[in-house]
């Protein structure tokens, strides 16, 4: 096996990011072909992902694939709803094997409903939290501005 499942998931995320639909790897007699399907949006835990309210008009979505945890796996999760967060604050993690990728608040704001179960498998674009930015000039549909 060239790559472990977690690595393949990371690779898929990267392919999505750069817009590559298919890739083939060959190494020491084994080969791996990765085809990225059309992105599917997972439904919200408590029903309809689209049923946003005026209070929380945006969605924080996953930017990596793996297993989602609100807060951090080593800390007891505080209820997300109503929590005020700062821009860039890590509000959850996505685990691929032992690696944790951050889910960060795109701006200062308040978290709304949790849209994905703790421990749930998520993919690029899976909605995770409802989010209400504090300032009206805040982000476009919850897509985080890269701070780099």
């Amino acid at each position, binding site marked *: 096996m060239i790559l*472990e499942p*977690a*690595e393949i998931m*990371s*690779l898929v995320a*990267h392919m999505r990011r750069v817009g590559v639909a298919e890739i083939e790897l060959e190494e020491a007699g084994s080969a791996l072909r990765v085809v990225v399907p059309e992105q599917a949006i997972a439904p919200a835990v408590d029903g309809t992902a689209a049923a946003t309210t005026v209070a929380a008009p945006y969605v924080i979505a996953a*930017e990596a694939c793996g297993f989602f945890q609100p807060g*951090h*796996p*080593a*800390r007891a999760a505080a209820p997300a709803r109503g929590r005020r967060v*700062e821009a*860039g*604050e*890590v509000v959850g*993690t996505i*685990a*691929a*094997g*032992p*690696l*944790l*990728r*951050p889910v*960060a608040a795109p701006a200062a704001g308040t978290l709304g409903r949790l849209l994905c179960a703790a421990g749930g498998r998520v993919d690029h674009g899976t909605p995770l939290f409802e989010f209400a930015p504090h300032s009206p000039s805040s982000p476009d549909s919850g897509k985080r501005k*890269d*701070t*780099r």
Partner: protein
Amino acid sequence: MIEILETPPLNAIQDLGRLGYRCHGVGRGGAMDRVALAAANALLGNDENAAGIELQLFPVRVRFAGDTVFALTGADCEARLDGRLLPPWWAMSAQAGQELVLSPPRQGLRAYLAVAGGIDVPEVMGSRSTQMRDGFGGLDGRALAAGDRLAAFPAPAFALRDGAGLGALPASLALAAADCPQAQPGETVLRVIQAAEYEQFDAASQAALWQTPWKVTAQSNRQGYRLAGVALQRLEPVEMRSHGIVPGVIQVPPSGQPIIQLADGNSAGGYPKIGVVIEADLWRIAQAAPGSALRFVSCTLEEARTAERAVAAYLGTLRRLAGYCRLPSLGKVA
């Protein structure tokens, strides 16, 4: 470059320790929690033996004098970078002038701070670890103090894919401890291989080793942990000749109260050994605070090997996956 703004004593530079100098009476030394330090280095793509800072006492305040990427692992000590709370076991970019503040841990005992490239201090006998007892290694053989300025080795320039950083699943969640039904929550379970003098102890002592909790006393530090519990007795006490020992050896002095020799422990000793904590579980001791309790579980060589492989797989996978989260950058790191 890191500047130490505030630190209690006993915080010092450590790597994975010295090998090959036992003929001089020099033991391994190095980080007490080798897994946490190795994970910090894995997140940064550092050499696996790069030196970091072992933090045993808090609060600690440091300032980054230049742009860098750092990782903080081990005890969960509510680190804040310029006021923003960091998740535990986390790596993140820091800009010149930013301050990192660490509070006394809410869980665990020792935290590890690593920076991209690793801390630049001279290698002494193959290691950058601070050997405080004999005053060599690390920064002039001593613990860090306010005002110290530490340089990092140049690292390949990179930026983190996610501005919010990246983390490692903490070892306590990633690496399963041995099964021990009688252990209470909060007790640290350690796998132990019987040592040469195990059979010299009476049946009640052998049973007590496995079946009773062992309290970590206040006389516990990097040299060793003195434990309190049932007094362990040998059937027929005989003098031992002095012999080489390794971190993890559970010695039983005549008081019957065991001592686990650890990173800065003696490289030789003359007390009988009832068991040895396996290498793969030594990091758990490093995070067990005085007042907490240890449990010993008998373990075979094969089980020890499996546990050791699990540690290596965890660190190896973490290193590989973290590599995907770093992007080459034009700027120079460190």
